[in-house]
């Protein structure tokens, strides 16, 4: 199976060398998608001779991930796994997640809470709200709908590469469930960010994300 690791990166010059070092231990191709970073990411990618795309304008995480799927589609990959460039997603979970794709699943989510208990903080309340919406809509119980670490099989690669509305992770998950694709979750661990600050540390962004996701699950993903 031809597999691509998609690494969305925005201002990750500090995290990339470490990540690449561990990715080199795996037999898979990887593609770093530089979302018009304002730091030295671009020069670093050239210098380290890494397989990468430099986007001429900033597309945001969802856009960058889609670029990865487009690339996977164009170059005929059968499976793609998304691994954030900020070092939160640990490469040691690539194998167990991909194993499920090999088993014939179309969409595999690396879930932080499949076997472990989900804590109760503000962010997880948001996550639970999304979980219940997905459950209402598709009848399936998911444990970590906002996880960015996911692997996608052949068919969904081409769908995600072309569609404009699979922006955020929960949207894509809802679509996959609703359209009858085989979806599963695998327990993974995630680190706190090594460096840089999260998009969600701004409460306004969190609020907007929640509204977008809820509306999208309820009204748009069929």
């Amino acid at each position, binding site marked *: 199976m031809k597999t691509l690791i998609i690494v969305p990166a925005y201002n990750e010059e500090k995290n990339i060398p470490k990540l690449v070092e561990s990715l080199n231990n795996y037999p898979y191709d990887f593609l770093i*998608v530089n979302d018009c970073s304002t730091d030295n990411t671009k020069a670093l990618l050239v210098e380290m001779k890494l397989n*990468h*795309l*430099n*986007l*001429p*304008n900033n*597309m945001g995480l969802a*856009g960058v991930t*889609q*670029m990865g799927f*487009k*690339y996977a589609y*164009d170059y005929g990959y059968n499976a793609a796994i998304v691994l954030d460039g900020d070092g939160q997603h640990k490469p040691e979970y690539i194998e167990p997640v991909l194993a499920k794709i090999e088993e014939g699943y179309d969409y595999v989510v690396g879930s932080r809470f499949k076997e472990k208990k989900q804590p109760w903080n503000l962010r997880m309340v948001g996550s639970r709200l999304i979980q219940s919406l997905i459950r209402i809509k598709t009848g399936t119980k998911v444990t970590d709908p906002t996880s960015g670490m996911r692997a996608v099989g052949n068919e969904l690669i081409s769908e995600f590469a072309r569609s*404009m509305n699979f922006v955020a992770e929960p949207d894509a998950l809802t679509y996959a469930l609703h359209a009858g694709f085989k979806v599963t979750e695998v327990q993974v661990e995630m680190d706190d960010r090594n460096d840089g600050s999260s998009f969600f540390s701004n409460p306004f962004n969190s609020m907007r994300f929640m509204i977008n996701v809820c509306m999208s699950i309820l009204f748009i993903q069929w």
Partner: protein
Amino acid sequence: MSIKLQLALLLASLLTTVFVTFCVVRFKMNVKYGIVWILWALIILFLSIFPFILIGFSDLLGVQTASNTVFLITIFLAYALSFYLFMKISKQNDEIKNLTYEVAKLSKEIKEKNRNE
């Protein structure tokens, strides 16, 4: 409908038509988009010349004055137009995304080719 409102509508629609035509002719606007505005101005022009249409419409809907019907119609048109713009923006957003990808991919391929030569 008062004669003052009628005259104001007449004037506004005439000015709009002239202004839009001017913009299209001076290449500041694509004809395709200018037409929407010219049509809009023509509708208002038509209504100000034949106000009985508006008055009849007001009676039909139970609107008390014809000026309120003018508001109703223009607000609806403004909504429709802004929705149309949202659709355009969203489509262009997607097109920009595709172009961004193509540019990134081509520049990658060119660089790789140059490196191999």
